Every structure is written in structure tokens, then in C-alpha cells.
């Protein structure tokens, strides 16, 4: 029993949840009033868009790529959501579908020309930002009513952001971790050549993963304007870093298709809580990103320790 609990495998899986629990406990200790329906709701309300962006990044990381454009992309979809989707819903839906298609095309391009995703997505981040500025030159717009209604749901007993985050994690977990095609998708990150030899189209896999990322990017943008009710081209610039950090905090490995959707959602929640924790400690918001970097490093250090024991 004790062996099972201290095995590297178990420790590695428990690390994301443990870091989240420790941070939450620390918050409750410093500010007991946070331990309420209202407090949790307030602290975690931005979890949903960040979790969705993290899941999008996770799909890309699964196939050994990295997306440095997810933040500006979420910003773009937020701008489309707050303008076109609100004014002319049909045109808005077409535009959002085009965004997802563009992601699929990027996946195809990266695979066919064997390009470094880092450079391609870095370039695309400018393209997304540029389009967003054209769509919405000055901050503003209004979120469609139905988006606000979906995001602003009130649930009894358990705050809605928690339920939504758990639901997102579970749905993606079922699709990616338990389905047979999900195993193939993850295999493409672990050993692309073997998957190719087994007869699966690597091109199709990349396109599927990139469109999944695009789709979750769209959801992230929409849920974000549901909370802020207005948009801005730069609204989600930070999300690129949040999303990468969230995946890593959630136990995802950088290469080899070793990812965890539930972990990624927990990672996103941990990041969101960091801000509240610092506020309760009355630490200047200057240190907010620094603290997120610090937590990232601590968790990675713990993981390195666990991996070393595995030998």
C-alpha cells in the first residue's frame, strides 16, 4: 500500500492536484472568508477561459509542437464574438469556423514542410493580432446575450466555474485518453514513425489536433467575452504563457505525447488562484507573474525529483 502511494508514477499523477490543494488550503488559511460559494466563484471565475486555452495548447503539445499564438488567437475570437457574432450571428459563426479551419491548415503546413511550430506560430500571433485590430480597432463591442447567459449560469451549492472546469476536463479526458483514436493521436506524439508505419495518416492527425486546438481557442474567446462582456484585441495576450504553464503544471510532458486533460484544467485553476493568493497576502500585483513563474519552477523541481527516483 505504502509502496503504491510513494511510487514515482503515483506521485507524478498526484502532483498537480496536490499543488492545487496546497494553494487552496493556504488561501483559506490566510483569508477564511474565501471559503464560501461567493468567494470561490469570485476567485475562480476566469478559470473557464484559461482552462479552455490550456486545453487548446495541450492538443498542440500532444503532437510535440508548441503554440505561441494561442493568446492573440483567443483575443481574435473574442473580438469576432463581440462584433460579428453579436451583430450578424451567421457571419460570426462563419468567421469563427474559418478561424478553426485556419488552424487545421497551419497543422497541415507544419507537417508537410516539416516546419518548427515555434516560428510559424510566433509569426501567426502577429497575423491574429492584426486581424483582431482590423475587426475591432478600439476596445468595445458587446457579447451576444446567449454567450453571457451560458457563462453566467448560477448553480446550487457548487460554484459554476468549478462545475464547468470539471466538465471540460472530463469531456476531453474521455475523448483523448479513453478512445482508441485518442490513443493514436497521443501515439503520434510518442512515436510518430510507429504510428505512420501502422498506417495512420500523420497529416490527418496533425490537422485533427490543430483544429481541436482552434476549436477550444474559439470557446476560450467566447467564454472570456461572456465574463467581460466587451472585447479588445489585446484582451488575451497573457493566455499564451498561461496556457503553456497550465499544461506543464498539470503534469504534461513537453515531448512524447504524455499529457493529461484533467491535469491541465487543474493547472489552469492553480494559475488563477495564484493571483488571489498574492492579493490576500497583500503582496503587490507586480509579483503576480513572478509568482506564477516561481510555482512553475517549484512544481518542475518536484517532478525532476520524482523522476530521478524512478532512475
Amino acid at each position: 500500500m505504502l509502496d503504491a502511494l510513494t511510487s514515482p508514477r503515483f506521485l507524478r499523477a498526484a502532483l498537480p492536484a496536490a499543488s492545487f490543494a496546497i494553494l487552496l488550503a493556504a488561501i483559506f488559511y490566510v483569508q477564511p472568508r474565501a471559503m464560501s460559494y461567493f468567494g470561490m466563484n469570485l476567485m475562480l471565475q476566469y478559470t473557464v477561459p484559461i482552462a479552455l486555452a490550456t486545453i487548446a495548447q495541450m492538443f498542440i503539445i500532444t503532437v510535440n509542437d508548441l503554440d505561441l499564438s494561442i493568446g492573440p488567437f483567443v483575443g481574435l475570437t473574442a473580438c469576432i464574438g463581440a462584433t460579428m457574432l453579436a451583430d450578424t450571428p451567421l457571419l460570426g459563426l462563419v468567421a469563427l469556423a474559418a478561424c478553426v479551419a485556419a488552424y487545421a491548415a497551419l497543422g497541415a503546413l507544419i507537417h508537410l514542410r516539416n516546419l518548427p511550430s515555434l516560428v510559424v506560430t510566433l509569426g501567426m500571433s502577429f497575423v491574429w493580432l492584426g486581424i483582431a485590430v482590423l475587426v475591432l480597432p478600439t476596445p468595445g463591442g458587446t457579447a451576444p446575450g446567449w454567450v453571457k447567459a451560458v457563462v453566467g449560469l448560477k448553480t446550487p451549492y457548487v460554484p459554476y466555474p468549478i462545475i464547468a472546469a470539471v466538465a471540460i476536463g472530463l469531456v476531453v479526458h474521455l475523448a483523448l485518453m479513453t478512445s482508441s483514436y485518442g490513443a493514436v493521436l497521443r501515439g503520434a506524439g510518442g512515436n510518430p514513425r510507429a504510428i505512420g508505419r501502422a498506417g495512420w495518416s500523420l497529416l490527418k492527425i496533425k490537422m485533427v489536433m490543430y483544429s481541436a486546438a482552434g476549436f477550444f481557442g474559439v470557446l476560450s474567446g467566447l467564454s472570456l467575452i461572456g465574463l467581460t462582456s466587451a472585447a479588445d484585441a489585446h484582451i488575451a495576450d497573457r493566455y499564451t504563457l498561461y496556457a503553456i504553464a497550465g499544461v506543464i503544471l498539470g503534469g504534461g510532458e513537453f515531448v512524447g505525447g504524455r499529457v493529461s486533460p484533467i491535469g491541465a484544467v487543474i493547472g489552469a485553476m492553480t494559475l488563477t488562484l495564484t493571483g488571489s493568493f498574492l492579493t490576500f497576502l497583500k503582496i503587490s500585483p507586480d509579483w503576480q507573474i513572478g509568482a506564477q513563474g516561481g510555482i512553475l519552477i517549484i512544481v518542475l523541481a518536484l517532478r525532476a525529483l520524482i523522476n530521478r527516483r524512478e532512475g
Partner: protein
Amino acid sequence: MTLIKQLSAKAWIWSFIGMVLVWLVTAIYTGGKGSADVITAALSFATFTVIVGIGQMFVITTGPGNVDLSIPSTISLSGAVAMKIMGGSDAMLIVGFLASLGCGLAVGMFNYMLIRVLRIPPIIATLSSSFLILSTAIAYGRGLKIKPPPLLADFTTAQVSGVPVLAVVIILFAVVMSVVLNRTLYGRAVLAIGQNMRAAWLAGINVERIRFMTYVLSAVLAAICGFLLSGFSGGASLNMGQEYLLASIAVVVIGGTSVAGGKANIPGIWGAAMFMFLLVTMLNTFGASAGIRLIMTGLIIVAVITIAGGDEPQR
């Protein structure tokens, strides 16, 4: 003919062709008015991109997965620290410069320590450290409105008949770094590691020491860039490093350095940095809006990398 053949075999030639083309198009559009001034401006601004580009190039050359994402925050931190220490006085110039170098040294060592001790990919390591560095810069440089010492401001903006002095200095520096890359043990070791890390190790190269030196070099160059940039732009600001994340990687790629590592060249960085600036100038003279400019910049980077193609990983 042999000259053309020889030249077209050089990876860096394309960035210079692009640079000249963009400049010519702009000159034709404006009827040649102010074309010389444009070159002066391009030299001035490209200088800073070249400084960080050279550091990034060495890092990228050490192989796939190696990239320094902490350059922008290092620029901001170094600028803020130097400005605060110098307090606008010429007498403190040397001290400020040394403090800047110290920042770079510390950041580089910290980055490498994360990579080595935590065994995490350099992208994640430099990303997490950039969070910490940026926070330090924000906390340290809050409300910082200090003018640079007059001597530094004069030096970074000085021109001799239209040629920025700083640009000449950095061109000379690029020549030196080119010799370092191609003719010294260190440079050859960087190339060897990028081509095949294991083979380089078996050949007796101290791989870890070379990687350590490379990350320190990149951070120190970023710090120098921050120091000079805050002199050039009349003070340090917290987001002054922001645009250099993409720029440092873009000039390396457009300049013809292989992203897969093991193949690098310095002249291309100058060509690419000039090209990027002249491109934005061209779009400006065409009256393109900010959105169009961003889109075009991004698309050209994607186009260049698509044409250059990703090399097969060498192993």
C-alpha cells in the same frame, strides 16, 4: 557566373536581396525622397535587433528545442537597473554598464541552472525564468522616469554623415562574432553540438560547458541591448523588450540560420534585421493601417520559414 553561383549558395544572401527589394520599392513609391534617411533609421533600429539576434542565433544553433524566451524580460530588467544606478550621471556610466552585464550574467546562469538541474526543455526553463525576471523588473522599475546619462544618450544616437556610430560598432562586433563562430574552438563546438550532440560529446567536447556559455552569452547580449536601448530611447520602460521576442527569432530564421541547429551565419542577421525594419517602413509609406502591418509582418515570417523549409533533424 561563378560569383553568382557562389553567392546564391550562401544562406544569408536572400535576406539582403529582400532588404534591397523592399528599399527599392519604397524609393520608387516616394520618388526617391528621403530614401537615404530611411537607411539611416533602419541602421539605427536594426542595431538593437542584431545584438539580441546574435545571442539567440548561438542558442538556436546548439540544436532543436534550444531557444531563449527570456530575452525581452532581460532587456527590460537590464535597462531599469542601469538607469536607476546611473541616475542620469555620466560619472556612473561604467558602474551602470557593469550592473547591466551583471544582470545578464545572473539571468544566463539561472537559465542554464534550470535547464541542467531540473532537466526541463530550454523553452520552458527560459519561459519560467522570464516570468521571474519580468516581475523583478516591474517591482524594481516602478515609476522609473530617469533620463539616461547625456554621454550614453549622445553615443547611442550619434551620427557621422548619416551613419549611426552605434551601428558601425555593432557591425564590427558582428564581424568579431563571425570569427568566433567560424574560427574559434567555442564556435566550432556550438556548431558541432547542434549537428549531433552525442557525436560532439564522444569527440571530447565539453557539451554542458558550451551550452552554459551559450545561454550566458545570449543573456549578456540581451542585457547590453537593454542598456544601449534605454540610452537610445531616452530612458528604460518596462515593455521595451516586448517586440524583441519575435524579432530575435525572426532575424535568425530569415537570416538563413537553420532552426534545426548546427548551421549558422552572422551576416544574415544584419540583412534580416534591416529587411524587417524596411518592410514596416514600406507598409507605412503605403499608408497601411496597424492591423495590415501586423498581418503582413506575420505572413512574411511564415512565408520565409515555409520557403526555407524545416531541415530534417540531423541524427
